[in-house]
Structure formats: C-alpha cells, structure tokens
C-alpha cells in the first residue's frame, strides 16, 4: 500500500510550490488588520471539531474535523490524496467523483462528517502507476483526456457507470424499464453527463469505456 501513503513534506513538488506561493501572496497582499476583521461574530466561537473515521482505499484513518469539511477537502487536505479534484465545488462538473460504499458521488457536495465509517475509493485506490485499473489503462490507450484535470473523476464515474448498467439501474435513455439496460454507448453517454471535460475528450472517453466493457456499439 506504499502507493497510497500520504505525501510527507514534499521537497519540491508542483503542489508544494503552489500552496507556498498562494500563502505568500495572500500574506503580502492583505494587511493584517483586514485578516483579523474577516471573522464573523459566530465564527469567533471556538470551532468544535468532531471525530470522523474514514476507510479510504482500504486504510482506516481517524480524523478530527471542523464539521464544515467536505469529503473532498478531507481527502485532499487532510489525507493528502490529491487525485480527486475540486472543479466547480457545486456538484456540476464531476471532477470530485469518488466511490462511497460502492456508489459514485460528488465528494464536494457532502460533509466528511456524514461518512463516518464509510468505505471510500478514490482514483489512488483504483490502481497504481505500476498496476493500472483496466479503466485507467483504457483512458491511456484511447487518449481519454487532454489536460487531465477531470480525469480522476471521469475514471471513477466510468467504473461506476459500467457497474450501474450491470446492476440493472435504469437511466433516462433506457427503453424498457422492466428489462435490463443495454451495455452500449448511448447508455454510457447519458450516465456520464455529470462529468464535464472542457478539453472535449468525450468521444475518446466513451471509446475507453466501450473497450473495458467489451462492446463495439
């Protein structure tokens, strides 16, 4: 499980540079008194943290969190699993998609506190650089991305989409509600509508999904 270890004190990483740079810029740009007055009266109360235990990619971690912390922020900022991305932070883009107790959800639109004890799979838990998940390998093979920012969410969503079709969960394009939904591109496209790709890699993403599903249509 070494691949899932939190990143500890990176010497020189892109993320480390960005974080340091942002703090530096904010400190330089905002005079100290402004920072002091931005706290609302009701935020002046001591923030009470609550214990939350998350089983992420097979490993259980006990956290003490401000109740406002979203599941996405818990994963990224507390567990340092930065594969899940913050795009819109409002459930519209799908970049934050993770799999909780077997179902894909928008991790930005839920609180970590609502998931005490839940089993969460992020992109880091699907596969590793040495042993890619079949969907990760198919995205590489079919060029299912350009900039890559939406890709972790796309892949978590794609894996879940194929499972949802197999489970017989209907979609808007399912013809016969009493039958099984078809394992085809029309069903996949409809079910992936909660994942936005600004680079427009959609057709290649569907190619990758069809490859994993073993279908031509």
């Amino acid at each position, binding site marked *: 499980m070494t691949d899932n270890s939190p990143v500890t004190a990176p010497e020189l990483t892109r993320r480390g540079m960005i974080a340091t740079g942002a703090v530096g810029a904010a400190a330089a740009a905002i005079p100290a008194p402004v920072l002091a007055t931005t706290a*609302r009266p*009701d*935020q002046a*109360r001591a*923030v*009470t943290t*609550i214990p939350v235990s998350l089983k992420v990619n097979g490993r259980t971690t006990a956290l003490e969190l401000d*109740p*406002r912390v*979203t599941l996405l922020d818990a994963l990224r900022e507390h567990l340092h699993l930065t594969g899940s991305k913050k795009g819109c*932070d*409002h*459930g519209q883009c*799908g970049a934050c*998609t993770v799999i909780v107790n077997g*179902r*894909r*959800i*928008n991790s930005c*639109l*839920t*609180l970590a*506190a*609502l998931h005490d004890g839940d089993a969460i799979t992020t992109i880091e838990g699907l596969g590793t650089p040495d042993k890619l998940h079949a969907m990760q390998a198919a995205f590489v093979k079919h060029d299912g991305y350009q900039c890559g920012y939406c890709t972790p969410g796309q892949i978590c*969503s794609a894996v*879940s*989409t194929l499972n*949802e079709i197999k*489970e*017989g*969960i*209907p*979609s*808007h394009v*399912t013809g016969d*509600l*009493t039958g099984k939904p078809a394992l085809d591109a029309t069903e996949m*496209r*409809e*079910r*992936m*509508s*909660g*994942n936005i790709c600004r680079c427009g890699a959609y057709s290649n993403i569907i190619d990758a999904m069809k490859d994993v599903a073993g279908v031509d249509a």
Partner: protein
Amino acid sequence: MKAFTFDRATSPADAAKKAIATPGAKFIAGGTNLLDLMKLQIETPQHLIDVNRLGLDTIEPTTDGGLRVGALVRNTDLAADARVRRDYGVLSRALVSGASGQLRNKATTAGNLLQRTRCPYFYDTNQACNKRKPGSGCAAIGGFNRNLAILGTSDACIATHPSDMAVAMRLLDATVETVTPDGATRTIPIADFHLLPGSTPNVETALVPGEFITAVTLPKPIGGTHIYQKVRDRASYAFAVISVAAVVQPDGRGRFAFGGLAHKPWRVEAAERQTGAKAIAAAVLSGARTTSQNAFKVPLVERTLGAVLAEAKG
C-alpha cells in the same frame, strides 16, 4: 460556509425534537442541495442534524397494495426498485430524468421534495428575492425570467419548483408522512404539501417548524401507460423548461401533472375530463400569467402533451 454545530439524530422523533430545540437547526440527509446553498451563504444554518442513519432507507409494501418509500431512500434506489419500475414507471422515469448519476446516488426522497428553486435571482445574493430575503422584492419579475413560472405566481415571486420526482408524486397522489416535534405523526397529501408563493414565498411547504418527513407513500398501482416527457435546454443533466407526467389508460383517459410551470407540481384534475391535448392544455393553463420571455411555455405545454398522448396511443 458559515460555522455550524453538528449532531446526529437517533430516531425520527429525536430529529424533530432536536430541530425545534436548537435555534437555526436544519436536517441534513444527502446534502446535495443544502450544501450547495450553504457554500453560497443562501442557507446559513447554525446547527445541522444528520438524519442519514435512522433506518428510513427501505421501500415496503403497504396493506392497501401501495408502497411506503422511506424518506432516506436514495433517488437511484427508488428509480431502480423493481416494483417502482413495474407499477409506477412514471416515477422511475421522472427520477432518472433529473440531476446526474452521482447526485441521484446521494439525493433522498424527502430531500428531493424539499429542494429549493433554481431561480437565478434566488441564487444571486446581490439581487432582490422575497424567497431568500422576505420583503426585498423580486428581481425576476421584469428580469431574466424565460424559465420561470406562469401559473400560481404572485407579485412577490415567480419561481418554479425544480423537482421532476415531485411531479410524478403529485400525479400518483402520494402522501407525505411526518413526525412533529411533540412526537405526533401526521400525513399530508402531496397536493397540499407544496405551497403557492402568495405574499410569503419563503414558506414553501406545509411542514411546521421541526417537522420531519419519515416516508412518502404511494397508493396502489393504477395501471395504464406511464410517461414522463421532460423538455430541457440540453439532452441530459438540466432542469426542466417544462415537463409532463402522464398515466394514460387504454380508453384514452388519463392523469397529467406538469413541472416547470409553477411554484409546485401542477395538476388540474378537472382538466383530465377534457379530451385531446388542446382542450386539456387550455384547462390546465387557465389563468396563466406570462412574460414576453416565458409565454412560449403555453404552446409548449400543448405540444408536449400532444406528443405524450400520441406516444401513449403507441
């Protein structure tokens, strides 16, 4: 997000009691609408009560042949339930026409009924909105209102109810079961559950403070052909411009409920005695108040209803 304290309910009655005991408390279940609004500081609860683990996530048959859907049943699970797909197809269709796969996995039955409008002026805290800030006015009237209501509106508000599921529930004459803070239970017919805006558009449902929804009950199946036709600006993951929920019987008679037209799912039972899309639509749309931007919804209702009736005929 503004700071809040957090607690977990131990039972439905405990949830209702806790909600009334703590000022500024709100229930949180799926959270897909509430957290969106909290991030924008449109909702600013001081206390959240987690109601996710109260065992309200099952769908059980009722003694009179219907189904009792637990308040916490997720939209995906309700749409996928074999009994719902077989006997209440319009509900399954309405559910899967809404939101995205990720949101449907999280959003709950009760939460779907309680979701807030997507009126852009409700969402913009720089704009006047009587629903968000009572007495501040309505920037939507005279503003960008192409997608807003044409029926049951008031001078205070022209917002629409965004739910697809609620339209199907209205069509099926569902009943909302609740528990109140004093521990009493009651049932509210879906027709009476959502309110028209009147002079208090901030009051959206018949629920009293602290009242907690435990289930939504469907009466016994009524047969017929089930159709949910949603007209929207893109093919998937968009709110309705208008929608038509229908159950049409072999003799051509049917029930029709409409989304995207009003502050609540819209159904006019008297209109269902009419024959043909033109006559039914005319009866449904009686009293419509349109703007230059949303007047197109009037012919759109008639045409969509016509398409639904044609589809039902097969």
